[in-house]
């Protein structure tokens, strides 16, 4: 039986005017377990706190009930006061007799009666309280950034700037991501390479940053502050410490007909290649699927021409294991596949291209050297049709995406404008459903395309693109404002494909136990207030992995994610909330219901050997809660049919005791 002390606060007249405080302390003194009961003018004052401390010592109290203002106000104050006497701070319960009693009731008798009941409920709860200790866990002072696009780069640079080590894992041979493929950037039209490549170089040169390019995350264990990650560094068959990036090998390689991913297959590369001139790290990579030496053991030309002796055909994948305190997901996006859009003849005609392909066709470092030429015959196109919302805002399952891809309106305006600027002899049509251009200088940018560059914006959609034998593309579209169907003989059609999260995101989310929405975008901890954190503690989100974003938004979010990481890594120890879930493993069925409702991925399962009631031993799958990750919401406790899962500080029996105490009068 607990020895409970009851302390009723007057709060000056705030409580005492409506609640007969001495009647409350008198009534509660008769409750089982109560060995001391008093009332005082201001419990939260120093004198009041001393009164509590003295009573705890003098009456050897094991539990304290304070009838006062809301626990949201002074729970911490009283917990600290009690802790100073050596009693566990979680043996304190507050009965809220101010905000939820004296302030809302006028009738003194009724308010007093209610205050007594609330006091009883708190006493009933304290009877079942157990001392709780907040756990501490250390923080590994290193962050991992998954994805080396502009989001990952910016996050890494910002974290490194604060003095913490950062590793970037990038699955491509170079960092840089999608932005490396882009020509100019809206709304200022500065060249992407000019603003991106210096950052890539910064990354490479920053001694706090370690780049694992051509690598993938293989396994993630642990929790906030203490992640243990296995990274698979794929074999490049080139010793990166020796390779100077001179490019001699890529000149000599006889395998010439390999579609170049960097240019989206619009031209070819060799079996040994450097993705582009400014690649970081600038080292060659052998594509094992196409290298004759690796496939058949014949050739070896690159090794012969490499003066640095960097070629190593025997190189193997390497597994790197490292510890991290925080993980940032920056896995980015991809345009969706357009094969299903037969109506736009994407698969039939090389002159129907995606917007990203169009970027390469206009990029000085692209396959055409920056001159806009039709992929089919290399001729200059005169009529161009841009189609917006291809696969965006589409509810057809398996074909498109229900969301707006956000960036297409702006880059299409950019494409149209640049085309008209460079080639004033062209006619450019943009078919739109809505033009969405919120953002600083965005709408002005779009208006410039229309007003200064004479781009034809048509409200309507393209219904059909038919390639004609003479090379023209017959575009049939509706002009909704004119109420007519348009038929355009186009030379090129550019499709603004919807964007979707990278395919690697889903398995990664599973590894991280981070939640995703139905579109495979990572879910943020709070849509408004915690936009760069995953609900899973220690996992942060940067860039388009969380939702479609343009470059300015991505960089802003990357910085925000970095600041959250820095905030975490600054701490030496993480103090956990002691009111966390706890699984009674003897009763656990291992059914996984609790895991499914846990927003934090705090619940894992293990196969454990148990001594069963019949004295046999059995291996059973049981849940365990990571106290460092659990936030104590209690969703699991109700999902658990056997009641094996309970919440410390708000246990089933505590809540039921409160219910009983409240209902019994």
């Amino acid at each position, binding site marked *: 039986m607990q020895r409970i002390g009851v302390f009723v606060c007057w709060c000056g007249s705030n409580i005492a005017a409506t609640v007969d405080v001495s009647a409350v302390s008198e009534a509660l003194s008769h409750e089982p377990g109560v060995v001391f009961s008093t009332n005082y003018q201001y419990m939260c004052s120093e004198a009041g706190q001393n009164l509590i401390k003295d009573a705890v010592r003098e009456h050897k109290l094991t539990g304290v009930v304070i009838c006062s203002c809301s626990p949201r106000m002074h729970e911490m104050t009283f917990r600290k006061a009690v802790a100073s006497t050596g009693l566990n701070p979680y043996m304190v319960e507050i009965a809220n007799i101010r905000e939820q009693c004296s302030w809302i009731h006028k009738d003194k008798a009724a308010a007093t*009666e209610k205050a007594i009941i609330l006091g009883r409920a708190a006493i009933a709860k304290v009877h079942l309280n157990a001392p709780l200790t907040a756990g501490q866990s250390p923080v590994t002072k290193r962050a991992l950034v998954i994805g080396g696009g502009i989001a990952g780069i910016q996050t890494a640079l910002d974290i490194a700037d604060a003095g913490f080590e950062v590793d970037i894992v990038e699955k491509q041979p170079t960092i840089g991501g999608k932005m490396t493929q882009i020509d100019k950037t809206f709304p200022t039209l500065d060249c992407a390479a000019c603003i991106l490549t210096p950052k890539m170089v910064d990354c490479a040169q920053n001694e706090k940053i370690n780049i694992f390019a051509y690598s993938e995350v293989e396994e993630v264990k642990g929790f906030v502050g203490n992640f243990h990650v296995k990274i698979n560094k794929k074999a490049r068959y080139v010793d990166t410490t020796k390779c100077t990036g001179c490019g001699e090998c890529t000149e000599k390689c006889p395998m010439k007909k390999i579609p170049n991913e960097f240019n989206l297959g619009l031209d070819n590369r060799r079996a040994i290649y450097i993705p582009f001139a400014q690649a970081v790290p600038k080292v060659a990579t052998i594509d094992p699927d196409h290298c004759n030496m690796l496939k058949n053991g014949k050739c070896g030309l690159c090794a012969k021409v490499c003066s640095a002796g960097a070629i190593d055909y025997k190189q193997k994948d390497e597994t790197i294991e490292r510890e991290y305190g925080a993980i940032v997901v920056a896995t980015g996006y991809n345009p969706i596949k357009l094969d299903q859009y037969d109506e736009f003849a994407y698969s039939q005609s090389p002159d129907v291209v995606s917007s990203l392909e169009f970027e390469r066709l206009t990029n000085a470092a692209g396959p055409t050297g920056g001159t806009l030429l039709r992929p089919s015959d290399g001729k200059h196109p005169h009529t161009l049709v841009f189609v917006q919302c291809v696969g965006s805002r589409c509810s057809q399952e398996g074909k498109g995406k229900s969301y707006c891809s956000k960036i297409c309106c702006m880059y299409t305006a950019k494409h149209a404008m640049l085309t008209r600027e460079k080639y004033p002899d062209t006619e450019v049509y943009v078919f739109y459903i809505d033009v969405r251009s919120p953002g600083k200088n965005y709408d002005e940018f779009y208006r410039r395309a229309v007003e200064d560059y004479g781009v034809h914006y048509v409200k309507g959609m393209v219904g059909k693109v038919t390639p004609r034998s003479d090379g023209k593309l017959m575009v049939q579209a509706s002009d909704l404002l004119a109420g007519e169907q348009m038929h355009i003989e186009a030379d090129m059609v550019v499709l603004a494909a919807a964007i979707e999260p990278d395919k690697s995101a889903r398995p990664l989310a599973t590894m991280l136990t981070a939640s995703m929405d139905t579109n495979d975008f990572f879910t943020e901890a709070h849509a408004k207030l915690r936009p760069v954190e995953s609900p899973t503690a220690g996992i942060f989100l940067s860039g388009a992995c969380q939702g479609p974003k343009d470059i300015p938004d991505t960089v802003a979010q990357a910085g925000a994610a970095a600041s959250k990481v820095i905030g975490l890594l600054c701490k030496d120890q993480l103090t956990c909330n002691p009111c966390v879930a706890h699984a009674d493993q003897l009763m656990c069925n291992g059914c996984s219901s609790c895991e499914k409702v846990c927003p934090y991925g705090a619940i894992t399962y293990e196969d454990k050997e148990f001594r069963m009631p019949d004295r046999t031993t059995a291996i059973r799958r049981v849940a365990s809660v990571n106290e460092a990750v659990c936030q104590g919401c209690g969703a699991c406790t109700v999902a658990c049919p056997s009641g094996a899962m309970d919440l410390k500080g708000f246990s089933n029996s505590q809540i039921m005791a409160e219910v009983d105490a409240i209902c019994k009068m």
Partner: protein
Amino acid sequence: MQDVKTFRPKIVAFCCNWCSYAGADLAGTNRLNYPADVKIIRVPCSCRVNPMFILRAFQRGADGVILCGCHPGDCHYSTGNYYARRRMTLLFSMLDYLGIEKERTRVEWVSAAEGAKFAATMNEFVETVRQLGPNKRLEDLRCKK
């Protein structure tokens, strides 16, 4: 049967710590009246409320039970109230199916800023339950005095 005029129902209100409990505090700060028949139990999240607690309250003599949580989408724990919503919908439907007055149970989303809504909800709920009279269909005679 007690007179409707003198009958004072016992109401248990489960409030989530982050929104509704704060909303109840705000009702107090703004001195918004509601009957003393309502007693609040603080829980971390509406998803902490087990159907067993609700039945327990009725067993022990409650005449009405109300669960308040953050508005859907605003849960401090992101998703807790979504689960609570499904659980309570099904539980209430089952109570109704068993012929137990559904008006004795209620879920209301009250944000930390909605002190007025909290008070109005409580006033309305107490009145509804008062009209229904004492809980007879889900009572435990052993707990009656």
